[in-house]
């Protein structure tokens, strides 16, 4: 069984079936992309994976354990973390503090430790701050450590979101349109960065519209349209798949 196994999950909002029996599997250390036209239900899939939405049918199995319909906190604890389509940073906090919020789940000192500044508090807080700085260094944001998140340029904000997700100790990162709004140079940098994540052993699931990113980096691609899975395969297969081209371009065959 794969590392993350999604079996025929379905989500209905009233009469509308937003996601209809979507299945996919992700192996450890893979980069898997989910693509599809706007409104296909990609973000809904992410919301189901992270526990924001309950699923109506199907199951999600991570590392041998079912995780569907659990609370978001529990899913983060298991090791799945995400970024958002519209950047959702803690803008009033500094860059390093944003990453520290990510370490929240792995911090074990309790309220009284923090009030009385016990050795346990100091040690753990130091560890976390050091860890946060190392993450920022690896992502190339260390020079902006003291800035407030709202003052970062767009590309750096995206990076910070990923840094924050890494800080939760996640093994699987769900990136929701990481390259959205980036210029070609920024998305090329992002490409490099996601590759380096793979080298470091992270598993990445990505929703993305920028085909230069998707085709270059993905080990496998799943395509959804109107909530239904329509294709899966390696990038070269997907690029020539007629149903995919139809979904994106409306039935015009550009293969010829």
């Amino acid at each position, binding site marked *: 069984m794969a590392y993350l196994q999604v079996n025929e999950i379905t989500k209905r909002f009233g009469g509308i079936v937003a996601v209809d029996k979507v299945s996919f599997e992700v192996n450890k250390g893979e980069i898997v992309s989910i693509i599809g036209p706007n409104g296909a239900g990609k973000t809904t899939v992410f919301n189901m994976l992270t526990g924001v939405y309950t699923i109506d049918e199907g199951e999600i199995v991570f590392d041998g354990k079912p995780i569907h319909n659990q609370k978001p*906190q529990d899913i983060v604890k298991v090791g799945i973390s995400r970024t958002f389509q519209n950047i959702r940073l803690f803008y009033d906090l500094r860059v390093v503090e944003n990453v*520290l919020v990510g370490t929240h789940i792995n911090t074990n000192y309790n309220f009284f430790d923090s009030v009385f500044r016990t050795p346990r508090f100091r040690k753990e807080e130091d560890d976390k701050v050091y860890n946060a700085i190392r993450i920022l260094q690896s992502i190339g944001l260390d020079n902006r450590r*003291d800035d407030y998140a709202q003052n970062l340029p767009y590309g750096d904000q995206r990076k910070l979101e990923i840094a924050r997700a890494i800080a939760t100790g996640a093994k699987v990162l769900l990136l929701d349109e990481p390259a959205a709004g980036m210029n070609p140079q920024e998305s090329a940098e992002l490409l490099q960065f996601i590759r380096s994540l793979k080298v470091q052993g992270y598993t990445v699931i990505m929703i993305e519209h920028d085909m230069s990113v998707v085709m270059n980096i993905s080990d496998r691609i799943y395509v959804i349209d109107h909530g239904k899975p329509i294709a899966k395969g390696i990038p070269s297969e997907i690029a020539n798949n007629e149903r995919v081209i139809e979904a994106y371009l409306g039935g015009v065959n550009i293969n010829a």
Partner: protein
Amino acid sequence: MNDIKQKKNFNIILYLEQFIDRFKLPLAVSSAVLLLIFPHLLTNQYILTIVVKVGIYIILALGLNILTGYVGLVSLGHAGFVAIGAYTASLLATRLGLGFFLSMLCGMICAGIAGILLGLPTLRLSGTYLSIVTLGFGEIIKTIAMNWDSVTNGTLGVKNIPSPSIFGLKLTIANGGFYYLMLVMLLIVTLFCYVTYKSRTGRAFLAIKTDEMAGIMMGINVTYYKVLAFVLSACICASAGALYASLIGYIDPNTFTFDVSTMILSIVILGGMGTIRGMFIGSIILITFPELSRSLMDYRFVVYGLILVLMMRFRPQGLLGWKSQMPYKLSKSITRKLEQARSDKQENLSQ
């Protein structure tokens, strides 16, 4: 133009912060000395009473600040928590003869429980909806105090609340003891707010305030932290309530009107939400202003309102509501570790 202005502001704050940072020790010592000898410089008890009242309102504002400034939940009913603290403490002191500190503690516990009871059902509410519910809460507490005659003595109120005493020494305004009691409590509450703010609890509070959804996705238990904020806030306000009751020696339901709630909220907003320094300047201005402007008579509330309106227009973040421009403070062990890592890396490169 706007850019230049902002840049200038930025520098002033940075200079100020650097100045304070450099002269930390002398500034702390001189202000401590000043605060300690303050009652001996005065012959006027009236001024000392006002100073103590300012201190009590700073504690109240620090309490509300945890809920409103950190977590972003606006409460219009904090007079309710003050009332619970004040009533519990003074009833225990007058009827059972409990000491001040014990009865204050009981008041804080009662208010904490009330905080849970108010916090849990309102978890899903925010903004104006929450404000309306808390407004109702304040009124309910007042109405209970008014109508539960057998316990609270109804509209007649609780009389002859004893002054706090330590080892048989009565702490009153006249001997200055009450002032020192207020000072100690203020110090404890301020430190408490500071250490809470600078910990994962504080970060979780701020995360919930800026983006609850993102906070949940970082694994923050929003229910726990919202209720915790309600409880901490209620406890702090209750302790100030108990202090207030023993200062005046008499409380009735009309001591804890909606005006008190709005006053606390005004202090928080005027001083700068989410800051500790702001609570000090806010209460100093808002509590002393009515006293200083007695010559304006009835017009003083017009001026008072005008100040608040102008402030909202020109400085919505509050008088001292800036964000620190100093670098994030790292502990020594981290700096050492980082330097170690850097030199290791350089060695590797040179090899």
